[in-house]
């Protein structure tokens, strides 16, 4: 499964540009699904049809997009200005490599992020308070013309960072939310004949504001929707002291975050399945944030929705860290739920 995760996190697919991930997912799922389609706004929906007389419909969601940046201006010397796509703290960008798919070669062009500093005072101020007004990206171009061969205003890019497999942890960009995509793909690979209809939704544009979920929910009208997403942690030095979320303690069954309160049906189903099968789990009450469960709750006449989280360190940084055991246990748990 690690190879699958590596393949998915390797793809650069910022919000609105999910095609790359979708194609990688479809390739992996060949022979493991009964069908797939894209909906109006680009969500990839795959399914397996249940054999029960009156099958229930389960929807599992992992968003295909990742946070990134977009080029807003290219100056005469070929330097780029950017804005965030989703929640990108400008602090994360300093010292980080960015990547953009070149118009000319279709290879990934790398960009280095730095900040304006006309005086030492400026440098100090801008370093202490980095913001998009003072940041710029350097792709090594010596002129506007050279830059324009590769990129244009309105060009989207993402972090570029290595995939690391170390001490039972996986570290990479875009674990948010490729880890969920990988979990769903792995689940479909492992599923044999299923009693219930199982839909996998690889939704678009979660990071800019939960766009895809409500549309997928409207189309599918499932009996239950489970969003799978990363969540924050509390187990690092001076981590959040009002929450209890640890890597390695099992997938986290979300009770609530800022955008939604998980439906009791979903929480109970996940909890019971975990207990009955001896799968470790933890409960999650998150003080902030939201997932696609919010989108599913608000569509049609309201779909019972909840979230299964993978506790992740350094979310929205170029190096998001998950525990491999949590991932494997999430697959196990979801498999029991849909069976």
């Amino acid at each position, binding site marked *: 499964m690690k190879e699958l995760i590596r393949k998915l996190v390797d793809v650069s697919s910022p919000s609105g540009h999910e095609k790359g991930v979708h194609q990688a997912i479809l390739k992996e799922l060949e022979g493991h699904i009964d069908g797939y389609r894209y909906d109006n706004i680009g969500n990839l929906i795959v399914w397996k049809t249940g054999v029960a007389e009156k099958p229930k419909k389960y929807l599992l969601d992992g968003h295909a997009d990742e946070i990134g940046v977009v080029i*807003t201006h290219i100056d005469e010397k070929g330097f780029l200005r950017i804005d965030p796509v989703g929640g990108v703290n400008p602090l994360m960008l300093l010292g980080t490599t960015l990547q953009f798919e070149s118009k000319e070669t279709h290879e990934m062009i790398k960009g280095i992020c730095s900040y304006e500093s006309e005086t030492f005072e400026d440098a100090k101020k801008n370093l202490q308070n980095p913001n998009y007004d003072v940041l710029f990206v350097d792709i090594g171009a010596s002129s506007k013309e050279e830059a324009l061969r590769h990129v244009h205003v309105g060009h989207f890019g993402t972090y570029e960072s290595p995939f690391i497999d170390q001490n039972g942890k996986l570290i990479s960009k875009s674990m948010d939310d490729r880890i969920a995509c990988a979990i769903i793909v792995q689940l479909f690979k492992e599923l044999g004949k299923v009693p219930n209809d199982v839909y996998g939704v690889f939704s678009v544009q979660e990071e800019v504001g939960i766009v895809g979920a409500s*549309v997928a929910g*409207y189309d599918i009208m499932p009996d239950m929707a489970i969003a799978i997403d990363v969540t924050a942690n509390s187990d690092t030095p001076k981590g959040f002291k009002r929450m209890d979320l640890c890597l390695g303690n099992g997938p986290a069954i979300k009770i609530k975050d800022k955008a939604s309160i998980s439906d009791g049906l979903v929480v109970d189903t996940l909890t019971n399945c975990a207990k009955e099968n001896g799968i470790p789990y933890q409960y999650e009450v998150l003080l902030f944030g939201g997932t696609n469960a919010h989108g599913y709750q608000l569509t049609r006449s309201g779909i019972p929705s909840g979230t299964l989280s993978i506790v992740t360190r350094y979310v929205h940084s170029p190096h998001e860290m998950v525990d491999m055991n949590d991932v494997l246990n999430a697959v196990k748990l979801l498999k029991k739920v849909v069976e």
Partner: protein
Amino acid sequence: MYLKILSELYGASGNEEAVKKYIREIVKKTGKIDYIKEDHLGNLMCFKKGKNQKKTLVLMAHMDEVGLMVSKIEEDGKLNVLPVGGVDPRVLLGKRVVVGEKKINGIIPFKAIHLQKKDYKKVPDWNDIRVDIGAKDKKEAEARVCIGDYCHFYTSFEEYENRYIGKAFDDRAGCSIMLDVLESMTELPAYNVIFAFVVQEENGLCGSGAVLKHFHPDAALILEGTTAGDNPELKKERWSTHLDNGPAINYLQSMYVIDRRLFNAIIRTAEDIKVPYQMKGRTVGGTDAGRLARSFYGVPGAVVNVPARYIHSPVSVMSKSDYHHTLELVKALVMTENYLEALEV
């Protein structure tokens, strides 16, 4: 062009009746619409059959503008107000408004410069904003206005050289362009077109989603008047748009990434017909495209803007050539198949 009259009509969010009445009149006068529909929220939808009737485009502009609403009448007869939509209180001091259906004249008071020492350095917030309608006390004020009355900016439309000046170009510019497109049609559009004039965009994209309950469009094209922000004291890199550089195209906005296929179709079309265009350099601010993408079965959309300086204030400035180039571009998108064909790839 109907921009003059449209911009001078009063229609803050939730109070679009006068704007709608006028638009309905013009739409009928063109005689080019198959039927008109109005929903419970107040959206006006005008259906035009196309050559290809299997596909439908929704062309959308919002009728509402930002304004104020009376929240309390003070003992001294002055009115407390709150914003309807995004209004910067700093631009209000000393400006004229009209209050309520009776269109009572009001002025937003401030302390004369003679009486100030350092007060002028203080940025006013909503606690400092009142409307003075000349009433001597609460009783007299209550005879003319009541809580919940709208206050609209009072600005007459003017033009000189390459500029239009007036209020509410966000989004009467879009409304005006839609009427111009309709009026100019000498043959059927490439596909069915719904000319949707929607309500309550400025207070949180409240109106547009309901349009999808009545029609099933394949894609949306949103027309907006958008921020210029090309003031000389600001860094050029951070300008949103620049007057006279042509219609501005969004690629990312608050809560929505513009559908890439539609975005590319707009650019291709602009290049085909040799209309200048620019990218909107800032990614903040939402439009109804974001609402339509999330509503019901999800309708992908893109946005074409006429740049305007100082929007969401009592007066904004627009370029005539930008307006006309935007009109040409929108016409081409409606009359050729580029736009909806892009979705088939």
